[in-house]
């Protein structure tokens, strides 16, 4: 059912610099993922699947491809008379630093927040791949009578620009310490940056942070209130992945080759929606050989494909061989080309007989529309 009392906010430019190759021409939110998705499809679908029908998307820069992807919000059922999708680009004033954290971003959209009538707000970052059940999270938020609830995942800490939070919680899940972890990769309870609170509280936090000229980092603002406010963690048990670099991006894609991950990420009762391209089904040629790969519609596969993620409209010609590659939409791999550990952006062309080889720790990236 439509949840009239909850609104959503999605931050579109989050840690873009960690995957430079892909964010040169777009925001983190519009980075292609998993054969047919864009990163923002995950937070948007999560919100919509929880009945949230009013969502503000906050981009900062490089957002043309994002605007193109979002359109009127129809694929997520967010083309609404009341509420629906709002894109809130920065409203630049002299004291706004678009490079600063979420607090500054929120400050630029204060009038949107003020003009909203929903009591609660759910904020999400666009660098997290996951099917997070936000309606369950809201239930947990109400049940614990928390002021703030933050989704977290137990696992190896992702890299980030020193703004990731890891939590220590009491047995009820109340967060009593927010850590600034030193070592990436250590196993801990780290934040997935899905945050629930009352809209009024959020506005107050942003206002106070600005007035007191505090750090613009979310983490600092929240940890300064840890004693006054009841802040709870919400454990996400299912697949959730923070993109913190090119290898991490590649591995998150390849994780989809695992049926358990696909079942969790593409739960049939909580689908992940995306813009439809009306592609034809994929055609497998007479001599094609495809193993352990995820392939979107609109492709023509005539060569060999092994351990790959193939986006919509890709053509793999006869005799071409791909292994451990991510090939983005409408790319063409010509005859006898041989690619290993390569990520190609959209619309690339790998010419006949070309051999390209990266390594599991260093993928070779091919720029958008490049001809190799």
């Amino acid at each position, binding site marked *: 059912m439509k949840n009239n009392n909850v609104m959503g906010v999605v931050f579109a430019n989050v840690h873009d610099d960690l995957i430079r190759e892909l964010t040169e021409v777009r925001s983190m939110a519009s980075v292609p993922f*998993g*054969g*047919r998705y864009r990163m923002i499809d995950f937070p948007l679908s999560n919100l919509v699947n929880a009945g949230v029908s009013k969502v503000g998307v906050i981009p900062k820069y490089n957002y043309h491809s994002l605007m193109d992807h979002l359109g009127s919000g*129809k694929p997520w059922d967010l083309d609404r008379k009341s509420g629906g999708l709002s894109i809130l680009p920065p409203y630049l004033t002299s004291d706004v630093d678009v490079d600063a954290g979420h607090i500054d971003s929120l400050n630029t959209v204060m009038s949107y927040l003020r003009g909203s009538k929903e009591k609660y707000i759910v904020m999400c970052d666009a660098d997290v791949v996951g099917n997070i059940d936000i309606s369950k999270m809201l239930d947990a938020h109400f049940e614990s009578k928390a002021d703030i609830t933050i989704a977290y995942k137990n696992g190896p800490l992702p890299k980030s620009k020193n703004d990731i939070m890891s939590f220590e919680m009491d047995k009820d899940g109340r967060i009593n310490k927010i850590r600034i972890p030193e070592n990436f990769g250590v196993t801990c309870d780290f934040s997935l940056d899905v945050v629930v609170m009352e809209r009024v509280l959020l506005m107050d936090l942003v206002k106070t942070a600005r007035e007191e000229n505090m750090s613009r980092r979310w983490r600092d603002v929240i940890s300064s209130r840890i004693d006054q406010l009841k802040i709870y963690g919400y454990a996400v048990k299912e697949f959730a992945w923070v993109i913190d670099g090119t290898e991490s991006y590649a591995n998150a894609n390849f994780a*989809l*080759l695992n*049926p358990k991950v*696909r079942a969790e*990420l*593409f739960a049939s009762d909580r*689908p*992940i*929606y*995306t813009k*439809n391209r*009306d*592609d*034809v*089904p*994929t*055609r*497998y*040629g*007479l*001599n*094609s*050989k*495809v*193993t*352990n*790969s*995820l*392939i*979107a*519609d*609109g492709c023509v596969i005539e060569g060999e*494909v092994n351990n790959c*993620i*193939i986006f919509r409209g890709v053509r793999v010609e006869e005799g071409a061989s791909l292994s451990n590659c991510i090939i983005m939409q409408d790319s063409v791999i010509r005859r006898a080309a041989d690619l290993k550990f390569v990520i190609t952006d959209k619309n690339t062309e790998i010419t006949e007989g070309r051999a390209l080889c990266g390594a599991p720790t260093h993928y070779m990236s091919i720029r958008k529309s490049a001809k190799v």
Partner: protein
Amino acid sequence: MKKTECVAMLLAGGQGSRLGVLTQKIAKPAVPYGGKYRIIDFPLSNCINSGIETVGVLTQYQPLELNDYIGSGKPWDLDRLSGGVHVLPPYQKIEGADWYKGTANAIYQNIPFIERYDPEYVLILSGDHIYKMDYSEMLQRHKETGADCTIAVLEVSLEEASRFGIMNANPDGTIYEFEEKPANPKSNLASMGIYIFNWQILRKYLEQDEKDPASSNDFGKNIIPTMLAAGEKLVTYPFSDYWKDVGTIDSLWESNLDLLNPKVELDLSDPKWRIYSRTPSAPPQYIADTAEVQNSLVTEGCNVYGKVDFSILFDNVTVEAGAEVRDSLIMPGAVIKSGASVQYAIIAENVVVEGGATVGERPENVSNLDDWGIAVVGADLLVGKNASVSAKAMVTESVKEGEKV
């Protein structure tokens, strides 16, 4: 209301009884086609691609799924401020309620709908053919020739001609005679069931036809012959691209597999003439280590662990490891379990074929070819473990373990 030049009326009420169990619960235009389409996607996409944005869809037989599928018309961009797609079931009037008695009567009953748009022309379409056609070119010809009615025709072989409505026309395209399924055809121009009429003239003939109690209220049987007899100008519009009536199991199967034939001129991937459809939100298809997929079409949501050759898998189909699918259509949501074999068959939506079961046979393995045909399993049924479904069988209820049908 803004004036609309041409309104399309799509006849989608037919049962399509020759498709048997496939149209037991759904109307023929809603039958899945080509991996991610339904038959009705073709006329609807042709309309929007031809610039016709007002379409009435006449439904009668099992309309629930079709209504749901069309919805607001959004997938075809037919959710328009003015016009758009409208589903038109028969309705009750002061003088009583009538089912659509025939194709012409269906249009007659919807005269008020058409009049709302005050059109010059009305395009009549049917929902059982697979083809791509630019109706705007046909309309152009209709205007140029000054015809009262233009009928799209296809050249068929003379042997086939006796299965169609045949137009006998002069070299300039004017029709002088119409023969329904003639034993000795004089021409090979078959009517494709696509007509453009000047609306005022059609309206007159519909009203006249309605008053005739002997009439079967059908375009081919009544309206066209009456117009010819009255000396109205009827002109052919020749069409020579791919067109297939998918009214039988064999033709439906063939037309689907035509998509895999490089010699067949039906390109669905042409960006200038897309065929739109309403598709579920499913992840990309997964092809596993154990899979062997060749010469096939596979679409979103499929999980393939087994062998698939010369077949079409619709969305969300699972083929388990050790299962084999050849020369077949597997419709949405069906599961072919490990060790099952499906050959020359149509497996309808959500069917489960259990391990060790066989459905269909290869023609070379059948002693008498007259006994051979495509095997069909109806929607939502189960084919039990080690059961076998013979060639040409039409399965309408679940097959028990070990059973042979």
